[in-house]
C-alpha cells in the first residue's frame, strides 16, 4: 500500500517518457506525478466504493433487481440486495440516500407489497351482476355503457385531454397518436419502461394511475401494456402463478379490471385498452394472446372501458410480420428488431384505427381532422 517508485520503463515506454519530458508534452506534469496510485489500491478503492454504494443504496438495488427479467442475474441481485436492505434499514443506513432523493425533489417510491393492484378485490368478482362470465360477449348482462357519461364535444380552445400511457409500447404509439389527432385533441404520452401489471413490486400502476388522474385530468386514457407481463405473477401471499396458466390469466384479468376502474372512475372517463400486436417469439405470442383475452374480458365489465384488437392491421392474416402494408398500399417496416415493439411506421397504422374507434364513440364530426 505504499507509493513505490516506478520501475525504470523499458523499450517503447522509456522512449515515451523521455520524449514526453523533453518536449514538456505531458499535459499536466504535476497531475501525472501526483495522480498515480498502485493498482492494488485502485482495486481496493473501486471495490470499497461499490460495496459502500450497495450498502447505502440497498433499496435502489432491490428496485433494480425487481425490474430485471426473471433469471439468474435477477435472482443473484435480489439474493444479495434483499437481505442487505433488511439489515441496513433498521440501522438507518438507507437514510442518507433517502434524504438526498428528497432533497432533489423525489418522493420515495411506494412499496409494491401494499399495491392496490395486488390486494384490491376485483369489482368484477365482487359484483357478479356486472361481470361477464367466461367468454360471454358484451351483449350479455346489463349494458355497462348505460352509466357512462356521454362524451363532450371538444373545441380547439378546450381540447379533449388524452393520455397515452403504458409500457415501452407507448414510446411509438404515443407520438403516432399525437400526430394523427385533430386540433381539438391534446395528447400527452407517459411511457414507463419495463413495467406492467405482473410486477407491482417494481412499478405500481394502480398508484400511478391515481396520480395521473390528479396531475393530468385526462378525459380519455389510451393504454398499451403487457409487453413485460409474459412472466409469472407473485400474489401477496407469496404464491407464484406461472405464466401461461389459467390462474395466471385470471389474475391478470383481475388486475386489468382494477387499473381500468381507477382510470375510468366508474364511467366518468374513458379507457381505450390497446391489444398487444402479435410477437415474433412463439412463446411470447402465446402469452400475449392470453393477456389480450384477459384484458378484453376485463374491459367488457368496466363501464367506459373499450378493448381494441389491433391484430387485423398489425399482422399478416393474424401472423407476425416485420413488414406490413399501410392503408394506401405502401410497404413499411412496422416492427422493431426485438419482434415486440412497433416502429413509428407500425404505430402510425395502429393510430389510424385508434382514431377510427374514437370517432365511433365521440359525437359525429367531433374528432374530424
Amino acid at each position: 500500500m505504499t507509493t513505490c517508485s516506478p520501475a525504470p520503463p523499458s523499450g517503447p515506454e522509456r522512449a515515451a517518457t523521455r520524449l514526453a519530458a523533453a518536449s514538456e508534452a505531458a499535459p499536466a506534469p504535476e497531475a501525472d506525478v501526483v495522480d498515480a496510485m498502485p493498482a492494488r489500491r485502485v482495486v481496493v478503492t473501486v471495490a470499497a466504493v461499490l460495496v459502500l454504494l450497495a450498502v447505502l443504496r440497498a433499496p435502489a438495488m432491490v428496485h433494480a433487481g425487481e425490474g430485471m427479467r426473471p433469471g439468474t442475474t435477477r435472482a443473484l441481485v435480489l439474493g444479495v440486495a434483499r437481505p442487505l436492505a433488511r439489515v441496513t434499514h433498521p440501522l438507518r443506513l438507507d437514510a442518507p440516500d433517502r434524504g438526498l432523493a428528497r432533497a432533489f425533489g423525489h418522493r420515495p417510491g411506494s412499496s409494491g407489497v401494499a399495491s392496490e393492484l395486488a390486494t384490491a378485490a376485483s369489482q368484477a368478482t365482487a359484483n357478479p351482476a356486472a361481470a361477464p362470465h367466461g367468454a360471454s360477449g358484451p351483449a350479455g348482462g346489463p349494458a355497462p355503457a348505460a352509466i357512462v357519461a356521454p362524451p363532450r364535444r371538444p373545441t380547439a380552445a378546450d381540447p379533449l385531454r388524452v393520455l397515452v400511457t403504458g409500457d415501452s409500447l407507448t414510446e411509438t404509439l404515443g407520438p403516432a397518436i399525437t400526430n394523427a389527432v385533430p386540433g381539438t385533441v391534446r395528447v400527452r404520452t407517459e411511457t414507463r419502461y419495463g413495467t406492467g401489471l405482473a410486477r407491482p413490486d417494481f412499478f405500481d400502476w394502480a398508484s400511478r394511475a391515481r396520480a395521473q388522474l390528479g396531475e393530468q385530468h385526462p378525459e380519455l386514457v389510451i393504454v398499451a401494456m403487457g409487453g413485460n407481463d409474459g412472466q409469472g405473477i407473485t400474489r401477496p401471499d407469496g404464491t407464484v402463478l406461472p405464466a401461461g396458466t389459467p390462474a395466471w390469466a385470471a389474475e391478470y384479468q383481475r388486475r386489468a379490471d382494477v387499473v381500468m376502474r381507477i382510470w375510468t372512475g366508474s364511467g366518468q372517463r374513458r379507457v381505450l385498452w390497446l391489444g398487444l400486436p402479435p410477437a415474433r417469439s412463439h412463446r411470447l405470442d402465446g402469452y400475449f394472446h392470453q393477456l389480450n383475452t384477459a384484458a378484453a374480458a376485463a374491459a367488457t365489465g368496466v363501464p367506459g372501458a373499450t378493448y381494441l384488437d389491433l391484430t387485423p392491421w398489425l399482422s399478416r392474416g393474424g401472423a407476425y410480420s416485420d413488414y406490413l402494408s399501410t392503408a394506401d398500399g405502401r410497404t413499411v417496416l412496422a416492427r422493431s428488431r426485438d419482434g415486440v415493439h412497433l416502429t413509428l411506421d407500425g404505430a402510425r397504422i395502429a393510430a389510424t384505427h385508434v382514431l377510427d374507434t374514437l370517432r365511433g364513440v365521440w359525437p359525429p364530426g367531433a374528432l374530424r381532422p
Partner: protein
Amino acid sequence: MIFPTIEFAAFFAVTLALSWLLMPRPRLWKPFVLGASYFFYGYADARFVLLIVASTLLNQAAARAVHRYRDRRLLAAAVACDLGLLGWFKYYGFFALSVDRALADVGLPAPLPLLQVALPVGISFFTFQAISYVVDVYRGGTAPAPLLDFAVYEAFFPHLVAGPIVRASEFLPQLTSPRDPTRVPVARAALLILGGLAKKVVLADVIAVRLVDPVFDAPGQRSSGEIAAAVYGYAVQIYCDFSAYSDIAIGLALLLGFRFPDNFDRPYAARSLQEFWRRWHMTLSRWLRDHVYLPLGGNRRGRRRTHANLLITMTLGGLWHGASWNFVVWGALHGGALVVERQVRTWRARPDDSPAPVEVPAPVEVPAPVEVPRPRSPAAVPAVVPAAVPVAVAIAVPGDAPARPATVLPPPPALARLASPHPAVRRGALHRHRAAVAGGGGGARAWLARLAVFHFVCVTWVFFRAPDLATAGRLLSRLLTAPGPAPLVTAPVLAAIAAGLATAAVPRSWWTATRVRLARLPTAAQIPLLTLSIMIIYAVAGPGQVSPFIYFRF
C-alpha cells in the same frame, strides 16, 4: 452489458482485480481479458460473440496475407468482407425496402426478400477498427499482431460497443508490455467516469425526457419556443450522452492501465465546421479521413475533386450512423457546408496567411508510441501517436492530414511553429496556442464564427434526431411559424442545457486542479467522496431507469 448497471459494476470490479493480478503474465492476461470482453459482449445475446470471433479470424488472416503478399486485391477483398458484414447486418433491410418502394412506384414486383436482420451492438465500431488494422498493416504502419493481441484489440470491452475507435497502432503497442501497476491515474479516471455519469444521467436524460422527446415526437403540438429550446436541447443532449460514454470508456480503460485517444474536445466551441469535426467524435472523423477521404484523393486532385471527396466522405459518415435517409441528409448537409467553408477560405486566403497544406507520406517503419500534448482538452488522455511523425502531423492542414498519424489536429497557423525542430520554439508556440484557446481567442469575430457554426450544427441535428424527413421538415417550419406558450421550457431544463454548454467553458486548469486535489487525498477520504458523488448523481436523476446511450444504436 451497459455501463451504469449493477451487472456491469460487479463485472468490472472482478475484471479489474483479476486483470491486475494477471497483468505480469501476458500469457494468462490476454486470454483472460479476451474472455471477459466476450462475456461482456455476449451477455445480452451470446450468438453475436460468434460474429466478432469470425470478424477477428477473417481480418487476422487478411492482415497476415496483405503483409506477406502486399497485394492490393487481398486488401480490397478483406475490406469488402468487412463492409459486407456491416452492410448485411446494418443496411440490408433499409436497402431492400428502398428498392422495393422504388420499384413499386413504377409498378414492378419486389426483387429482394424483406427481412429484419438482427443488429449486433457495436458492429460499426469493431468493424471499423478491424478495417483500420488491415489497412495499417497493408500500408506498413503496423506489423501484423499475434492473433490473441488482435482479438483483444478488436474486442476490448471498454471500447467495444460505442468507441472510441482506437487505432491498432495506438492499442497494440500497449499489449506488448505489461501495464505499469504502480502508477494508475485513478483521479483522472474517477473524474472521467463520474463526469460522464453526471453528463449522462443528470443532463442528457433530463433534457431528453422533459423536452427533446416530447417535441420531436409530436412537433405539431408544440410552439416555436418549445421547438427552439428542443433544438438547442438536443445539441446538448447528444453531446452529453455520447461524450459521456466516451469519457466513461476512457476512464475504465485507464483503471485497467490502458490509454485511449480522446473522442471529444469541446466541439461547440469550434470556430469553423472543419474545426468542429476535429473536436466531435474525433476518432470517427480521423477514421473517415484516413480510410475514405484520403484514399479518394483528399485535396490533391483539384478543387472539384476535393469538394466531391468531402461530400462523399461526410455523406458516408452520415450513413454510418444508421440506415435512414435522415442520416444521409445530415451527412450531406455537413459535407456541403464543409465545401462552402473551404471555398470561402480559399477566396479569402492570402499567400502568407497560412501554411500550404503539406501531405506527408506515410512512414514505413513502425514508430514507437509517444505521448503528445492534447491541448485544450479537459481531463484529456494523452494520445499515443507514432513518435516518428508528430511534427509532420502538425503542419498538415486539418482535414487533409496524412493518413497514418495524428489524432486531433490543432488549427494550423500557430501550430506551424509547433513543428519546429527547436524545442524552445515549439514550447513557446504551444503556450501561445494554449493561451489563445483558453482565452477564447479572436474577439467578436471568433464569437460570431462560433455562434454560426453552433447554429448550423444545431439545425443539422434536427435531421439526425427526427424520426423521418417529414417530421424534420415540419419541425423546422414550425420553428418559425408556431407562436404560443412553451410549457415544456422549464427552469430545470434550461439549467441543464446551460450546464451542458458550460462544460465547454471550463478551463483546463480547473480540471487539472481538481484532479490534483482528488489525487492528494488519502484513500480513506477518496472512497467516501467518490461514493457520495455517485449517490448525489443518482439522487438528482431520481429513481427512474437510466436510458440507453444514443450511440449504442450505431
